[in-house]
């Protein structure tokens, strides 16, 4: 009891997965404490879903080790304490929402006497109470994703994996999911949030790891990651060669008229402006701001590529 209770929600050491000659995950080492909302970021194909599937025992690691709630991955009893919303969410269309959740209560397995309350609470949390007795086949994508989230919540899990949990949701739904995630954290549930929606991660996560090409390229709290300044400049009159020369000011997100230097010391702004003018550019606006997660993310990927 003592060791397992004190153990982190997730702990991995050099977790590696290869599919033939392709490295899907290269030596993932990380620790997610209990009750923390952990964001796992990365571009498509970076290895995010592979990581979740490895942790849940759906894939077997090529090498390395990992523990969930203090027990080695693949341990059946530990899965009673885990919830999972897959990226590819699909539920039995021929069952109604209440029956799908009852199925998950049964497989969890929860005592039958608690099902009614668990199902009602989960439906209420995701806002599907009104559709509880409707067949899942009549649900929209967004409603099915809500149902998947409800299924992940039954049994008050200690650790929840959410793989792109808002991919099918409208802005209201996304807001609801953020509130649900915060609620989970408040009651001590650790949340592993896989996402490429950076603003969403930025708003809810305590800590994040950025993964690319199967490797973690940065990790830390939001404050640790977003310590720099980004500078956005509105310019005209710069040709391609001039823009290339601006690379001296660090990673650049070039959106035509708007250039964002994703990490630039505020003291270098006058030098940047004079350089742009010297290169024949006309500056209309300069706005320094704290780095957003998107700035940092693009900066990290830029550094990784170079």
């Amino acid at each position, binding site marked *: 009891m003592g060791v397992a209770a004190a153990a982190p929600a997730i702990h991995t050491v050099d977790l590696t997965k290869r599919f033939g000659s392709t490295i899907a995950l290269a030596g993932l080492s990380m620790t997610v404490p209990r009750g923390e909302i952990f964001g796992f970021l990365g571009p498509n194909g970076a290895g995010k879903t592979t990581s979740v599937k490895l942790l849940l025992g759906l894939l077997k690691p090529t090498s390395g080790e990992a523990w969930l709630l203090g027990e080695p991955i693949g341990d059946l009893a530990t*899965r009673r304490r885990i919830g*999972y919303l897959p990226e*590819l969410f699909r539920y039995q269309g021929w069952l109604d929402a209440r029956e799908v959740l009852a*199925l998950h209560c049964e497989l969890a397995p929860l005592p039958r006497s608690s099902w009614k309350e668990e199902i009602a609470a989960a439906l209420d949390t995701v806002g599907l109470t009104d559709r509880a007795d409707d067949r899942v086949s009549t649900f929209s994508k967004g409603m099915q994703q809500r149902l998947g989230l409800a299924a992940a919540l039954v049994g008050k899990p200690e650790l929840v994996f959410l793989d792109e949990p808002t991919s099918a949701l409208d802005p209201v739904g996304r807001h609801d999911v953020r509130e649900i995630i915060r609620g989970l954290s408040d009651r001590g549930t650790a949340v592993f949030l896989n996402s490429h929606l950076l603003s969403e991660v930025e708003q809810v996560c305590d800590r994040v790891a950025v993964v690319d090409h199967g490797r973690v390229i940065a990790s830390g709290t939001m404050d640790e990651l977003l310590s720099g300044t980004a500078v956005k400049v509105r310019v005209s009159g710069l040709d391609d060669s001039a823009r290339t020369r601006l690379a001296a000011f660090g990673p650049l997100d070039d959106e035509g008229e708007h250039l964002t230097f994703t990490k630039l010391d505020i003291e270098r702004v006058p030098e940047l402006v004079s350089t742009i003018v010297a290169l024949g550019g006309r500056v209309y606006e300069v706005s320094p701001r704290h780095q957003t997660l998107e700035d940092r993310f693009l900066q990290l990927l830029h550094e990784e590529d170079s």
Partner: protein
Amino acid sequence: MPPVFVFARLTVQESSRRRLLLALVILTLLVVGFSAWGFNKITTVTRSDGTVLPHDQVSLITSQLLIVITFMYSGVLALSAAVVAGPLISSEVESGLLLSMLARPVRRSEVVIGKWLGLAILVTIYAAGSALLELTAVNWATGYEPPHPVELVLYVAAEGLALLSLGLVLSTRLSGITGGVIALVAWLMAWIAGVVGDIGTGLQNSALQNVGTISHLLLPTDGLWRGAVYAMEPDVILAALRAAGTAGRANPFSAVDPPPTAFLAWVVVWFGLMLTLSIWSFRTREI
């Protein structure tokens, strides 16, 4: 409820809610109705002298027609088992339906056995139900009943279960449509190989006989079908076939002897092997 029974219940429930059972029941009732009408017509056939056929002759004709009708039932059962078993696991892996369930404290062996069990219940109920209806209708129409009705149901059900088991193995790795088609082709090939074996017996050619024997070992559906045929053959037909010697055996709709005990023992082992292979294949599959 243990996960095995949860998955078995889900499989039965899905077939019921998707109206597969209803479709089978309606089609079966139609076939039973038409065949009862047809069998009844045999009793009214008159000879050139205006008299109706004697009861023994009606029974003989009925027994042989019943074998052909049972072949249709076994075909429907085999086709249904293959088509339903083919996508049983693969479609749920491809769609992602199994992902959230496999993240629960569920062993993959429990998924495989549960799904097999659910479909096996359906196959057995269909075999028993359709046989009961058809034999009752035939008995009502002609007064004939086959010599071994219980064995008949068991052999036909076992044939369906064999196709289901093959479909399930394929379903752990191949897409539903591919697995279903392979299972169907295998069933037809096994039947044809059985006919080739019969011809070998008729011609006393051991090479051809071996084709039949090997096919019975690889996929025992044809061997089981012969068991069903034997269960329907009246003594008088058996005596005539035996009198015809080896030539009497060269016919896929006849059986002179019941399936050997060694074959039946092999069938039990074969089912065990198929289930073991399905479990191993699914357990080692990365999802």
